[in-house]
Structure formats: C-alpha cells, structure tokens
C-alpha cells in the first residue's frame, strides 16, 4: 500500500511534467492548426539554457531566464520560419517542425556536445521531503508538482479571465471566426507560440536535473507528448490534462509492478512449455509488465483512435 502511494505521487510528477508540454502544444495547435513536432526540442533547449545559466548564477535565475530566452526564440521561429511555411499548407508545416526538431538537436550537440550535462537540482531542495516505508520522496519533486500546478493555474487564469484568453478560447472552437474578427491574428499566433515554447522550457528546466540533460531527451519525450495530446483530443486542454495524468500513472505503475505474462497464462490454464528457449512463444511467456510499459501509450493511442477518432475530449476532427 505504501508503495502504491509513492507510485501515485511519482506518476503525478511525470503526468504533470507531461502536461506542461502538452498544454503548450495544445494551445499552439488550437490556434494555428499546426502540430509542433519540435515542441519537445524547446523543452530540451529549456533544460540546456537552464543548465548553462545555473553554472553562472545558479538554478533560480535559470528557472526564470531560460523560459524567457526560449520563448523569444520560439516566437522568432514562428515569425520568420513557420509563418513563411504556413502558406504551403499543413503538411509542409509539419515537415518544417520536424526539420526544426532535427536541427535543434544538432545545434544543441554543436554547443554542448553529446554527453550528459551535470545539471543538478538546487542545493536548497536536496533533501528528502518525507519518506514512505523507506522510500524517500525528494523535496525537489514536491517543488516540481507545485511549479506544474502553478503554471497550470496561471494558464487557466489567463485563458478564462483575460481578453487575450477569451480570444484564444474562441479560437479553440471557431478558428475561422476569430481570424475574421480583425484581431491582430499574426501577433497572437506569435505570442501563443512563444508562450507555448516557454512553457515547454519551464518543464525542461525543472526536469533537466531529474531526467537528465542530454541530446536525446527531446526524442525520448517527443513522441509521448504527441501521443498524449492525440489521446486527449487535439485542441482540448482538459483532454491533455487527463491524458497526461493517465499516461504518467500508466507508465509509473507499469514499471512498478513485475506482473509476468507467465503467471497470467498459467492462471488461464495454459502450461509453460518445458524447453522455453526452443518455443516460438518464448517471448510471450517471458514478457513482463515493465517490459511493455513504454509501448502502452502507443497501444492506448491506437485503441482510442480506433474507437473515438477525435480523442477522449476532442471536439472537432482534423
């Protein structure tokens, strides 16, 4: 039971982190109709900038500065890159962001090399906040939870209480109408792209010390982020939240419990073949839950899309 509670908390951290990426991606998609393939790359940039700044002035200024820098870079890319490609249509846009993801990974390697950076959590948070049956829960993870929730509340406030939020919300449901209302749509696009990438960067700064700051971090997380927002429903913020938490817990619990396929197969009355190594089904018998953990999100996505093509909370089909 105590392990279960610890896993709930760990899964929450993963899920909320995922949500910080997904919320930005969802906003960008809702406004501009483009799925930003490079979103996780901005998360990586956040981690690297956070690391670099932390080597000069410490972690905390990095937490503020890195997202701002990344947000400005994101806005610039929207202004000078994406807007140009927009005229060619959605598929070239998607290809552009894909190319961007490749490029950012190369640029990161150009400047920081290929090894993992020694990005450390701030000393002030390097203690175990509490401990459940011998399992320490680091204070840094508590901090991560609060940051993620804080970012979400700020986002919610902006979306529901401010004028600009109203416009963005309207764009969720009536993208064409908003375009025709005479708002400075390009400027809003640029702003939303900048804010979305900045949010990814915040996630990067706080995740960097825990999940590692290395050139593969974007790819590792990237496809999961897309899967999450597709499951949640493209363009739905609440769907993204639900799907993020779902996947966070799914992955945590899948890794945490060593359920074996062999037990399941024996339970339904099959007998394990004597010479397992020779059997064609040996892979099936030796399968465990942690092994299949990483593919569960993809399976879930395919199931969801087969049953409900617009995703769990999706309003419109693309």
């Amino acid at each position, binding site marked *: 039971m105590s392990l279960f509670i610890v896993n709930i908390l760990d899964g929450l951290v993963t899920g909320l982190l995922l949500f910080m990426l997904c919320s930005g991606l969802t906003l960008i998609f809702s406004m501009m109709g483009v*799925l930003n393939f490079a979103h996780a790359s901005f998360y990586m940039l956040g981690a690297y900038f956070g690391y670099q700044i932390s080597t000069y002035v410490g972690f905390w200024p990095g937490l503020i500065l890195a997202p701002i820098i990344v947000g400005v870079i994101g806005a610039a890319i929207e202004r000078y890159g994406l807007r140009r490609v927009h005229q060619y249509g959605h*598929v070239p846009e998607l*290809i552009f962001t894909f190319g961007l993801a490749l490029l950012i990974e*190369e*640029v990161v390697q150009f400047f920081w090399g290929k090894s993992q950076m020694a990005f450390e959590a701030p000393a002030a948070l390097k203690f175990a906040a509490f401990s459940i049956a011998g399992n320490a829960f680091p204070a840094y993870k508590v901090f991560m939870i609060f940051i993620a929730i804080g970012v979400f509340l700020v986002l919610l406030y902006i979306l529901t209480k401010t004028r600009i939020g109203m416009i963005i919300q309207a764009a969720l449901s009536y993208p064409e109408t908003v375009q025709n209302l005479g708002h400075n749509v390009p400027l809003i696009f640029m702003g939303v792209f900048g804010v979305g990438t900045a949010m990814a960067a915040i996630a990067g700064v706080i995740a960097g010390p825990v999940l590692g700051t290395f050139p593969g971090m974007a790819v590792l997380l990237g496809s999961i982020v*897309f899967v999450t927002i597709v499951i949640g429903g493209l363009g739905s913020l609440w769907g993204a939240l639900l799907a993020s938490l779902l996947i966070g817990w799914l992955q945590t619990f899948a890794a945490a419990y060593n359920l074996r396929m062999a037990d399941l197969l024996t339970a339904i009355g099959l007998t394990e073949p004597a010479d397992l190594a020779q059997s064609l089904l040996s892979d099936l018998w030796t399968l465990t839950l942690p092994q299949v953990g990483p593919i569960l999100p*993809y399976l879930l996505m395919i199931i969801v899309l087969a049953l409900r093509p617009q995703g769990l909370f999706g309003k419109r*089909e693309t």
Partner: protein
Amino acid sequence: MSLQGQQSIGTKTPLIPIRKVLPWLIACGFLLLLPQVFPSGAGLTIMNQMAITIVFALAYNMLLGQAGMLSFGHAVYMGLGGFFCMHLLNQVEYNQLYLPLPLLPLFGGLFGLIFAFLIGSFSTRRAGTVFAMISLGVGELIAACSIIIVVFFGGEEGVSGDRTMGPQVFGFDFASQLEVYYLTAIWLVLAALGMYLFSRTPMGRIANAVRDNEERAEFLGYSQRNVRWISFCASGFFCGIAGALFAINFEILTEENLNLATSGSILLITFLGGVGFFVGPVIGAVVFTLLQTVLSLYTEIWQLYLGILFVLTVMFFPSGLTGLIAMHFRPWNLSKVGLLIRPYAKIAGPALVLLFSAIAIMEILFHARHSSIGSEEMNLFGMTINSHSPVPLIIAVGLLLISFFVVRKLAPGLLDAWQDANHQERET
C-alpha cells in the same frame, strides 16, 4: 506488360513513344556501366545502398508526393519486409526451402503489402495530421516490439542470414558484390518502372485528386479512404521490395531498420529531392547518400549541415532540389537561359564565399569547443589554423558579412533577370 496490354487499334500515339522510353534506356545503360567505373567493393556497397534508398524513397513518395499522406513511421514496412525475407533466407539455408534469390524481393513486397493492408485499414481513415500521428504511433510501437519479440526480430542484435545458400541462378550464387549489384539494379529498374506506371493509372491519378481536394474526389464517386488505403498498400509493397534488397545486400536486419530515425531520414531524403516530381526522390536519395558517406569523412558536424539544408529547403524551396532544376525548364524552353548566365556568374563568387565563411565559422567554433584540451590546430579547407585564436574567426566573420552584403546587393539583379527569362515577350 501494361504498356502493351492496353494498346487499342488505331491510336495516334505509337506503341511505345521513344521520347518516354529513352530516359529509361539511358538509366539502364548507365546502371550497367557503373560497376566498370567503380569496381571496388565499397563503391558497389554504396551504389547498392543508393539503389535501395531510391526504391524506398520512391515508395515513400507514392504516399507523400502522390497521395499527400505524411507518414512518420514508414521504415516499418521496409523493415518488416526485410525481416521476413531474412527469415526466408534462413529457411533456405537450414530447411532446404527452394527459393532462388532473385525472386526474394517479390516476397518482401508481398509481406510489406500485407502489413500495409492491415495497418492501413485503420490509419488511412483520416488524412493530414491524424494520419501522421497514427503512423508515428504505429512506427514507435513496432520498433519497440522489435526488442520484445525476439523470435521474429532477433532482439538488439537483429536477424542475420546468408544469401548464397539458395539454388544457383544461371550459375550465379551471389557471393560477389558485383552479382548483388546487378540483381539490385534490375529490381531498382523494375520497381521504379512499376511505380512510374502506377502513377499513370486511373488509381494513381485519383490519388493525386484526393491529395489536392479530397472532398471533391468524394463527390466524383471515389471514397477518399479507399484511395488512401490502396495508395498505402502499393507503397507498402514497394517498401517491402526495398526491405528485401536490404536483406540481400547487408544480410542483417536490426531494430534500426524500423525506428523513427530511419523513418525520419526517408522523409528528409524525399523532401530534399522534391515530392512533386517522380524523379525527385531519386535525386534526394543520391544526394543524401553522397552527403552521408562523403561529408561525414570530412566533418563531424555533417548532420548539422544536413539539418540546416533541410530546414532551408522546407522554407525556401518546398519543391526540393528537383524543383530547383525544374525552375529552369521554362527559361530553357523559351531559349532565355542565356539571360541568367551573367547574373549567376556574378553572384556565384560571393555566394560561395558566403557559404564557405559560414562553414568556416561553424567548424572553428565547433573545434574550439569540442577538440580535446591542448589540441588547437585544425585543418580547414586545406589550411592549418589555430581554432583557439580569435584571428581566423574574425576573418571568417568579416568575409561572411562582406559576402552577405554583396549577395544582397546582387540579388535584385538576379531576380530581374529571372523575371525576364520567364516571360515570353517582355517588350510587347
């Protein structure tokens, strides 16, 4: 076969118009002669690899270019076809299955087709972003499964085999690289011809129609979903052929044949070459293999250059390298290419300086940051310079700025000339 099958009596066009067949004949002759020019084993390996990439890229473009479907997981169909062929080869070796090697690609194609049929049944329901995302998910899923399902995928070390264990065909046992080259070349021509002809069938044309305007196609009696599904299956078939050729050439298949990196690079190759042209992926595959094998000999940051090239292509030349060449057809037809020579010659020098100074800056920075401590000397365009001293960097930046301004000054002239060259009668 279909060339003659549909011949009806009394047509105006000849049976096989020479204008259309000539490029194919030249290509065949060229493929035949190539090994005489580059007979080394490594040369043959690279040519084989190029041929396989061409088949794969052409098959990919059946989706991206012809049917407008962006797949992020297309390595799966090539990979699965290849894995299946590897197992067939092992059956030939250990269980005396009778299968002449030259027929193997056919089976690879069939296996690719079967998988495309199964996965296409749900992934082709939607186009655009949703299709792209499903293809990504399926691709990641199967790549991840390759580590888990060891019986079929062989785990991390993959599945290997020996192509020479089958029955000899006309005395060939395909032990030598040259025999494999000719086998690959024959299948390259067959597959390319098949895909070319496919694009000229009613199905191929309707795939274009669905790409351009899926709604309108629906109101002409065509189910957009079925059109996409059939395109997907056809692409899967040719991907499977590419996979079989890979199995024959490398005699090993691994997870790498299925993963996102391979899927991504085929997108890159195809787009770089130009999705709007049949020959685009061919050029893309050739250029990419060139960059990969040659550029990586000279610079460590070749992937950075490739990334920059790709992003610039998407932004400024969405029709790819082939599009860049095709842009000149109109001035050529108007006999006005001459107008372009002078402005091109004028801008070429500064543009090259711009290019090389940009490269120099990147190389110097990279060396300064990543060379081992103490090693300050580096080789740049044949010169030995000190990457840690500011002088070379300042010179490079200076050259970059100067050439940039010169290029900017010359650009309007080039554009004017370009306008002239593209207009029939400017004075009237």
